[in-house]
């Protein structure tokens, strides 16, 4: 899986309440959730997002609530992959289960600035900052994670298995 896009970079401890505030959880329609993604942290986020753009953040991305609406809203807002120094436990699992690619790559985070253009080869675990020319490595997706993400989430992946 390859991703290519402009980076939107944020700090540490980006919590699920700013990713999608609870006041918008009166729906579970992904497109509706996407409209309010990151709104309390960066009101201009949705407007500047281009489909395929990349989120980069420091430590503990997705801390807080277990709401699966958080990865759903990010994915539906058009984010192709999140690269962070670390992820909170529940968010990590929720992201994979909902088919949102995430990668832990501390050195890449340090070497990437807001607005940079980045290419990611998730199967090889290679992150290239096209703006600076620097290359970083990350853990490639294990095959089962790749399978879940390609199918769009755990439920779809499991349904595929059952049909087979």
């Amino acid at each position, binding site marked *: 899986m390859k991703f290519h896009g402009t980076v939107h970079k944020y700090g540490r401890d980006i919590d699920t309440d*700013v990713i999608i505030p609870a006041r918008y959880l*009166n729906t579970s329609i992904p497109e509706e959730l996407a409209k309010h993604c990151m709104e309390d942290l960066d009101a201009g986020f949705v407007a500047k997002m281009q489909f395929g753009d990349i989120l980069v953040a420091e430590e*503990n991305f997705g801390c807080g*609530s277990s709401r699966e609406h958080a990865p759903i809203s990010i994915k539906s807002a058009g984010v192709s992959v999140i690269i962070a120094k670390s992820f909170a436990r529940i968010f990590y699992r*929720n992201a994979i289960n909902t088919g949102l690619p995430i990668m832990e790559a501390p050195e890449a985070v340090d070497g990437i600035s807001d607005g940079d253009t980045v290419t990611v080869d998730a199967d090889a675990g290679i992150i290239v900052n096209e703006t600076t020319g620097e290359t970083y490595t990350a853990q490639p997706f294990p095959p089962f994670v790749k399978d879940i993400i390609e199918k769009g989430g755990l439920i779809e992946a499991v349904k595929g298995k059952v049909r087979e």
Partner: protein
Amino acid sequence: MSAISGKTIAEKIFSAHSGTDAHAGDIVVADVDFVMGQDGTSPLAIRALENMGVDEVFDPEKVAVVMDHSSPSPIEGVSALHTIMREFGKKTGAKVYDVGEGVCHQLIPEKGHVVPGDLMVGCDSHTCTYGALNVFSTGVGSTDGAAAMASGKLWFKVPDSVKVTYNGELKPGVFSKDLILYLAGQIGADGATYEAIEFHGPVIDELSVEARMTISNMAIEVGAKAGLMKADAKTLEWFEGRGEKTPAPQAPDADATYIRELTFDASTIGPQVAKPHAVDNVSPIEEVEGTPIAEGVLGTCTNGRLEDFAIAASILKGRKVHPDVRFIVAPASRKILLDAIEAGYVQTLVEAGAALVTPGCGPCVGTHNGVPSTGENVISTANRNFKGRMGNSDAFIYLGSPATVAASVIEGKITDPRKYFEGGQA
């Protein structure tokens, strides 16, 4: 890890539930004793079940959905979500806790759905609360929750455990909330990510079961998967008459292996306050005393229990809430509301000027019951003060103990509660 070393509480509970000799780092498929969702997360889990083509749950006695986050419904969209939950209950036989029953994390143990030694998952991050009752309970997303509702099983990575010991004794006016806020300030929001914390020491032993739940409730605020305690005589007594399940407590072995050990002297810890907009942005109350407040909140799954009402009532008895402050009080369950009425705490708090709302999450999550205005400060007994948490991203939330909240709503500013406890009682 060596197979001859002893086991932590987490390793013992996962061994018992997976039929393996489970050690930290192992991936196990384990039987869960209970699965729960609330009104924010259950609809997604129910939809996931439908997408899987599953129209029943593994055991209706072991699944519950709780309407607590936005309850009674403040808006049509939530009403529709509540309808989905009620219909799910009718279809599958899963237990439905409807409007007015209380917060999921109070109801699940209060109704005896879990007992010491159990393993459970809930579609809510504060599911770690029951760790205080020797239950390995942890928050999961709706997809994992749906998988557990369907199969009664889920895969887990057995976590490493961190041993946190509180020595000494709590000083008057200092409570379990202060202990866990202090820990968050010490180790940070990711201080125990993917790990289980075991809480030990004479201070924990002395605490009531309710006060212990406040500590385990906030284990997630340092990233932990669980916040576990041993079951003692108090724990077992707490469960008497609550259900038919037999507790099977799991105590750690004396030679259990911990990835880290932290020891604190509670005698040196005073009231703590978490400042906006992070739970680990903690300081001693002296640093924030005098900060003006517009709203106070007593309640939530952190501090909405009878003992919390008793503490607040002892301070507010014969006193008045400051005229510039809204004081919102939300009991954690219907039973607590009834008990607090019987004990006279509700009378005391309402006479003092409190606004009593439906048992449930109250204003904690920003969907109803007291959204602060722009620029306002709130002092709350809740567990999170993230930007926008209470529904307004331009409000400022401070977290403290029930005593700190009660003292603060009287003066209209953040106030050290210890002056009400000089001589040993309020």
